[in-house]
C-alpha cells in the first residue's frame, strides 16, 4: 500500500480560502482608513501587525498575497501623497524603509514557519492514519492466523490420538511377536510427532 502527501497549501489565487480572503479584506480596510486622517509614516507598522496576524492564522501563501500585492503595491498607490507629506527628511524615510523591510521579511518568515509546521502536522497525521490502517490489517491477519492454528492443531491432534489408540491395541495383540518391535518404533515416531505439534500449536 502506498500513500501520497498532498499539502493543503494554496497554489493559486482561487485556492485562497474565503475566511482568509475576508480577513485580508478587513486588514486592508484597517490599513486604509487611517490613511485619510494621519500620515503614512505614523501608522505603517499597522500593516506589519496585520501581516503577522494573517501569517499566524493562514500561513505563507495568504501572507505573500497581502504583503506582496496589497501592502506593497495597491495601498502605497493610494497612500502615496501621505507618504510624501508625512516623511520629513531622509532619516525618517530610512526608518520607514527599514521598518517595512523588517516587516516584509519577518512576516514572510513567520508565515513560512507556520506553513511548514502545518505541513509537518499534516504529514504526521497521514503517517498516523497509515500506521493505524496497517495495525488494523495486522490485527485481522493475526486473528485469522489464530483461527487457522487452532483449526490445524485440532485437525492433526485428533488423528494422532486415534493412531496411538490403534497402536496400543496392536501392541497388545502382537506381544511376543516379531511385529512388536516395529509397532513400538511406530509408536515412538507418533509420540514425537504429537510432542512437536503440541510445541508448535
Amino acid at each position, binding site marked *: 500500500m502506498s500513500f501520497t502527501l498532498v499539502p493543503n497549501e494554496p497554489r493559486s489565487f482561487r485556492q485562497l480560502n474565503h475566511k482568509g480572503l475576508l480577513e485580508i479584506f478587513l486588514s486592508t480596510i484597517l490599513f486604509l482608513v487611517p490613511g485619510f486622517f494621519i500620515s503614512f509614516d505614523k501608522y505603517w507598522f499597522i500593516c506589519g501587525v496585520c501581516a503577522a496576524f494573517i501569517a499566524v492564522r493562514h500561513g505563507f501563501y495568504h501572507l505573500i498575497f497581502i504583503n506582496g500585492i496589497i501592502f506593497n503595491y495597491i495601498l502605497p498607490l493610494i497612500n502615496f501623497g501621505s507618504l510624501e507629506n508625512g516623511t520629513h527628511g*531622509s532619516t525618517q524615510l530610512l526608518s520607514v524603509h527599514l521598518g517595512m523591510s523588517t516587516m*516584509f521579511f519577518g512576516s514572510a518568515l513567520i508565515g513560512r*514557519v507556520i506553513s511548514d509546521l502545518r505541513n509537518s502536522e499534516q504529514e504526521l497525521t497521514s503517517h498516523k492514519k497509515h500506521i493505524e490502517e496497517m495495525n488494523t490489517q495486522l490485527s485481522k491477519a493475526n486473528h485469522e492466523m489464530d483461527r487457522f492454528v487452532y483449526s490445524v492443531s485440532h485437525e492433526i491432534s485428533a488423528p494422532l490420538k486415534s493412531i496411538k489408540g490403534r497402536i496400543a491395541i496392536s501392541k497388545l495383540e502382537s506381544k511376543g511377536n516379531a511385529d512388536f518391535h516395529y509397532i513400538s518404533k511406530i509408536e515412538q515416531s507418533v509420540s514425537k510427532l504429537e510432542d512437536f505439534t503440541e510445541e508448535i500449536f
Partner: protein
Amino acid sequence: MLLFLWSAPGPWERIFILASRDPVIVFASVFFSRNLVRESNDLSNTQVFMKFVFGVIVLPDLINSLYTYHNTFVGGDLEKVALLWLSDFITIFSIAVPILHYFKP
C-alpha cells in the same frame, strides 16, 4: 556601448566598471540561486526561503550597493546607500516571492 554613445565622462575603465553593474548582479543572483537553492524551484520550506532571501536577494543587492556607493549620485553618503538598498530589497522581495509562488517555474 550606451555609455560610450551618451559620451559618459571618465576613462574607459570607469565606463567598463559602470557598465558591468547589471551583468555582475544578474550573474551573482543566478550563481547563488543555482548553488544555494538547488533542491527546490519554489519557496516550499523555510530553509529554501531563507537561502533564497539571503543568496538571491540580499547578497546581489549588497553588490549593487558597492556600485551605488562609488559610482552614483549619492557620492559616498552611506545613509542614502542604505535607503536605496532597503528600497531595492522591498521591491525585489515583493516581486520575486509572489511570482515564484503563484507563477511557479
